[in-house]
């Protein structure tokens, strides 16, 4: 058994359930891996942890990974998982269904949220003057409250996280995805420490394959995935409905247009290029790096 520390991007949300399924159903074990899953404090921190090698792998926002690689961190994306979850959420009774309708509205997001940082790209792609959209910048935790209080008309968010949370608070929400309006980018995937991956290709292969299987199993039987998560983290029992909804929305967001029909995990150079272009243009990434240094499909099952 090879020990492997795998760190999630954030504290538990529904999209994490398949990893626990892989753990509980013995998929990782079968691949010769002794995986321990830990929660994280945001992709920015997790990239550094994986780069340092304390954790060999992480479930990381690819945008953060790109910044890391650009800074010289030894990281490599080996499996695309969640894509195109970026969305704009509004209240159903005053629904905002297109970027154009954001004109003159108030949105709220924390300065550190990539979803918010990319929003100008969405607006630009749809001919909206970003200056016409006012922005509130509460702390991450306060964003939902500001929205529920209707201090903000809309919030940029991720479909697989916030929608379920807001619904749990009794809100009726409406949303549209960035990907339906020309901004189609990858979100989270499996990132390995590049040096580790090079030295232990079998580990990476085994982990990726098991994870891929787990996501397939979870899609067929979401309940088993949730059971596995709750078994590991009993206190999550109380959040089960939210987790279930988050997981459900996760399965709608497992591919980009370029990877349509390809197996889960497969990545296309064009996705990386367009993503870097956005990051350079809108979020202060100093330069794009060669895509080969960012990802490889070689660890995916053939």
């Amino acid at each position, binding site marked *: 058994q090879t020990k492997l520390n795998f760190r999630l991007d954030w*504290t538990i949300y529904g999209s994490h359930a398949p990893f626990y399924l892989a753990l509980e159903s013995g998929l990782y074990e079968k691949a010769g891996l002794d995986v321990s899953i830990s929660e994280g*404090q945001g992709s920015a921190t997790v990239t550094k942890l994986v780069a340092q090698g304390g954790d060999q792998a992480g479930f990381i926002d690819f945008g953060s990974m790109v910044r890391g690689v650009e800074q010289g961190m030894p990281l490599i994306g080996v499996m695309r998982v969640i894509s195109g979850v970026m969305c704009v959420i509004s209240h159903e009774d005053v629904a905002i269904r297109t970027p154009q309708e954001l004109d003159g509205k108030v949105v709220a997001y924390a300065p550190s949220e990539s979803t918010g940082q990319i929003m100008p790209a969405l607006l630009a792609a749809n001919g909206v003057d970003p200056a016409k959209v006012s922005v509130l910048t509460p702390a991450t935790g306060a964003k939902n409250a500001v929205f*529920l*209080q209707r201090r903000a008309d809309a919030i940029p968010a991720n479909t697989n996280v916030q929608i379920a949370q807001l619904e749990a608070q009794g809100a009726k929400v409406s949303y549209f995805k960035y990907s339906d309006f020309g901004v189609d980018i990858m979100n989270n995937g499996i990132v390995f420490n590049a040096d580790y991956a090079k030295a232990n290709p079998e580990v990476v292969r085994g982990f990726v394959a098991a994870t891929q299987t787990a996501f397939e199993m979870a899609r067929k039987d979401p309940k088993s995935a949730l059971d596995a998560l709750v078994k590991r983290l009993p206190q999550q029992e109380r959040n089960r409905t939210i987790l279930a909804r988050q997981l459900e929305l996760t399965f709608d967001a497992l591919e980009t247009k370029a990877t349509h029909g390809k197996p889960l995990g497969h990545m296309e150079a064009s996705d990386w290029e367009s993503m870097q272009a956005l990051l350079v243009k809108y979020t202060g990434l100093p330069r794009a790096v060669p895509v080969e240094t960012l990802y490889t499909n070689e660890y995916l099952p053939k």
Partner: protein
Amino acid sequence: MRNAIYPALTAVILVGAWYLAVLFFEVPRYLLPLPGEVVTRLIEDRDFLLRHGWVTTYETLGGFALSIVIGIPLALLIVSSSTIDRALMPWIVLSQTFPKIALAPLIVVWFGLGLVPKLIVTFLVAFFPILISTIVGLRSMERDMDELRLSMRASVWQTFWYFRLPLALPSLFAGLKVSVAFAAVGAVIAEWVGANEGLGYLLLTANANLDTPLLFAVLVLLMVLGMVLYHAIEMLERLLIPWHATIRLKTGQPSF
């Protein structure tokens, strides 16, 4: 016992006001749950909360102990030599003027995710009040007493132990009180740097899930932790310096 009345009353008023606020101002539950919900949560999840609470408690105590063990000798060193004072103080002040959480990645990378970084961060948050108060306390020796200890040829250590420390106690305790109240916050911040357990970790989870009852349950535990520690220090103070005016006046001589 009589001493418990006021804090108890405070708690009652606090909960009452909270209750009324939620009802009258129609504060939505996701902002401020009803006290009852928080209490229910505290009871239902008690094992789980206590387990995490215990983690934070020992981090707090550890960091606080470290603050004392390092803070007081450091104060002595600074008081004993103006060169050390001028060489060290800027560094120390420096260490206080930025949010520890900003160095989280460095701390995690250098010290891992175990107990050590928690103790370091808690220490960094909690030691400064002790240091500064102890310095003022140690320096508050008037000429009379300084001449007395000189005439007795007291060594540096004796000067500290027999003269400066007892003199410094009132001020030192002020520092301890501030410090102990901050130590719990320090532990929470330390957990934000990276942890899988503890009340700080729970706060993050609660926050991420919009789980306000849990958030408030954790806050209640933090308050209880802070209050207990604070009052423990206050009792120790009463025990150690009954001779000091601070305490004498409080316990009250008869006067008009």
